[in-house]
């Protein structure tokens, strides 16, 4: 079902939504830095940055999340779990790649035989409102990674910026709740054509330039390749690419507190950190950046597809934009493809 939301009504619409739900949307922390965050007032919402620094996965899988509290009282340990989410949530303005990524993480956290309740609870209580990318960035390669700049799947509602208004598509049952909302007016017959126009333009820009097909098979043969000796060289081992990646989902479990009381926390962790795989004995199966970079790329493009039949990358390009030494994952993918000479030239 298609509707139209005037930009004039946007803030009042959000206000009405916020009466019943917690609203999460991109906000700008300082010029050029934005994250998804719970909104207190609709005027905080800021779509000006196409991709926020931290991806929308943070709403479901926070960087640092208490799993349970414990307290020792009279020799007994009391444990209270923190999985419950009290209010319904709305995630507004996530780009299609972020939403696609959420469904990828969902596969991991919901996979049998164990279900991650912390993720599930938040996912179940959240309505996703996607936002089409017009225009996408030059670092975007979502089409090559199996998505596209206007991918609807995963979203409950989907917005497209038409200049003076947003076109709103109600896509799922969760989304249909909004069908009676007074701010969502009848769609203009012109809208469809304009959306199509925007889509075509975006598709053209993103293109299918990255040879992602068959990468799983190619990497199967490349575990011991010379490729890894070179590709890692410039990596300095920071965690930007993994923390800003919408599909990375590794975490660490630590206790914070003392004997009497405290919390068990789950914090994001990164395979690029040497401590990630360091064993207590002092042995590290991934001793250098070579193995760690390989783990990162292999996990995304080989291990993940083996388990879930889809590459673990959605092509948002954050890791390309923010890498301090400018490691370009697209280039790495191209190098693995057959077009590349056996040894990198340099």
């Amino acid at each position, binding site marked *: 079902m298609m509707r139209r939301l005037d930009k004039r009504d946007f803030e009042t619409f959000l206000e009405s939504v916020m009466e019943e739900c917690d609203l999460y949307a991109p906000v*700008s922390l300082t010029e050029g830095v934005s994250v998804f*965050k719970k909104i*207190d007032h609709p005027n905080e919402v800021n779509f000006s940055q196409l991709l926020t620094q931290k991806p929308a996965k943070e709403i479901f899988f926070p960087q640092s999340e208490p799993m349970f509290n414990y307290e020792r009282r009279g020799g007994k340990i009391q444990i209270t779990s923190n999985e419950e989410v009290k209010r319904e949530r709305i995630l507004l303005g996530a780009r299609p790649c972020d939403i696609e990524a959420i469904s990828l993480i969902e596969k991991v956290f919901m996979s049998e035989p164990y279900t991650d309740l912390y993720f599930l609870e938040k996912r179940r209580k959240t309505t996703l409102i996607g936002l089409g990318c017009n225009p996408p960035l030059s670092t975007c390669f979502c089409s090559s990674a199996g998505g596209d700049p206007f991918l609807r799947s995963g979203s409950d509602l989907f917005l497209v910026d038409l200049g003076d208004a947003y076109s709103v598509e109600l896509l799922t049952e969760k989304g249909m709740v909004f069908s009676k909302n007074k701010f969502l007016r009848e769609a203009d017959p012109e809208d469809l054509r304009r959306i199509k126009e925007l889509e075509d333009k975006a598709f053209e820009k993103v293109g299918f330039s990255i040879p992602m097909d068959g990468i799983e098979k190619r990497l199967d043969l490349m575990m011991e390749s010379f490729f890894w000796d070179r590709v890692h060289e410039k990596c300095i081992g920071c965690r930007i690419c993994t923390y800003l990646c919408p599909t990375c989902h590794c975490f660490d479990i630590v206790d914070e507190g003392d004997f009497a009381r405290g*919390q068990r926390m789950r914090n994001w962790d990164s395979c690029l950190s040497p401590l990630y795989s360091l064993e207590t004995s002092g042995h590290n199966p991934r001793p250098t950046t070579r193995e760690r970079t390989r783990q990162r790329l292999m996990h995304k493009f080989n291990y993940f597809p083996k388990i879930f039949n889809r590459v673990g990358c959605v092509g948002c390009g954050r890791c390309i934009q923010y890498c301090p030494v400018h490691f370009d994952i697209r280039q790495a993918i191209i190098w693995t493809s057959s077009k590349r000479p056996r040894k990198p030239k340099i």
Partner: protein
Amino acid sequence: MEKSWEPKILAFLCNWCSYAGADLAGTSRIQYPPNIRVIRVPCSGRINPLFILKALQSGIDGVLVSGCHPGDCHYLSGNYIGRRKFATLKRFLEYLGIEGGRVQFSWVSAAEGGKFSQMVHEITQEIKKLGPAKRFVKREDSRAIKFETQNSKDKTILK
């Protein structure tokens, strides 16, 4: 409430001079405020700035580091090396906005029981004036992160 508040001061005393000095103050029955908690360290050069920061973060109102007078170090140069660290650290913390009075340094020899007591009096007074430490103190309720966004500048953050 204000009146009953007493500052907690953590004192790192060097084993060879200041600790003995504090001991002397005790055996000579010179009184000094009970606000200090003493940790004996081998040398003032042993003090890692992390100790001081960790103490402040854990809610200590003031930190005192005390060692031998220059030239008297049991390990010859420990306090000289320490002095450079302290000078830069103290300046840096003040620069960041942590009250300078919260981090104090002194040289107290084993014979200066009187000086020790006098100094603890002074420091306690000074820190009392500053009031309870607020900045940089980790509390249980401070776990929630609050961002200040561009459009919500008037809001207070990080209470």
